[in-house]
């Protein structure tokens, strides 16, 4: 089955981003196809490489990056939600005159159309949120 995953909550504050990760990993292990993972609302905070959790805790961001590298996942952060919350890649830094970037490896910033397209192209859209 072809799936698009939507992640609506930030790391550590909510379990949803953990659950979304475990679901995505399990779906891949079962042989399903992940068309896209779309991060919205505070979910965009799953994509900052500047996160530094305590050593004895899981690293939610790094975990997504590693899963993306392993399975060639398309991890998309909503641009409008990212601009509000300060998630920045090279293009956004240049467009908005920011002095730094913080996007994590394997993530990209794009528009909400990517979420709608995910819904259209996939057999199921699975939403993780509050």
């Amino acid at each position, binding site marked *: 089955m072809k799936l698009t995953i939507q992640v609506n909550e930030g790391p550590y504050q909510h379990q949803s981003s953990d659950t979304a990760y475990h679901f995505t990993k399990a779906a891949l292990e079962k042989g399903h196809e992940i068309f896209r993972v779309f991060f919205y609302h505070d979910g965009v905070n799953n994509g900052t490489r500047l996160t530094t959790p305590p050593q004895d805790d899981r690293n939610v961001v790094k975990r997504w990056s590693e899963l993306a590298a392993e399975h060639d996942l398309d991890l998309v952060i909503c641009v409008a939600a990212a601009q509000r919350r300060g998630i920045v890649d090279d293009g956004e830094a240049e467009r908005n005159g920011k002095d730094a970037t913080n996007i994590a490896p394997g993530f990209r910033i794009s528009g909400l159309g990517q979420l709608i397209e995910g*819904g259209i192209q996939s057999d199921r859209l699975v*939403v993780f949120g509050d």
Partner: protein
Amino acid sequence: MSDIKKFMYVNRRAPYGTIYAWESLEVVLIGAAFEQDVSLAFIDDGVYQLTKGQDTSGIDMKNFSPTYSALGDYEVNKIYVEKESLEERGLTLDDLQHLVWEDEDDDWAEKDSIRLVSRAEMADVLAEQDILFNF
């Protein structure tokens, strides 16, 4: 592109306490360009999103409620409001904005966008959808 799917945006929260209502509306506006079968549902505190006369000057937040009246122009004209959610909050249809759309197949007649449905009817509408966005 696959066949047209039934997209429903389910709005469950009051408009300003969290950003869900506003960011839901942003998805609706972008999604309207994809020519799918779109409808909106307002349940629980989500019914407050449609109330008329919203004034956010006291909280220094953008009043985005006028945007709902533009939905008809985006051909988003199926807006389901749950009757019980209104009643539980002491609201009636008269407390909500009068949302309309123009039907080009009927000489651009202005028609109501809001469909008042019972909780049981809302469950049926939800069950018919291909895609549910839950905000």
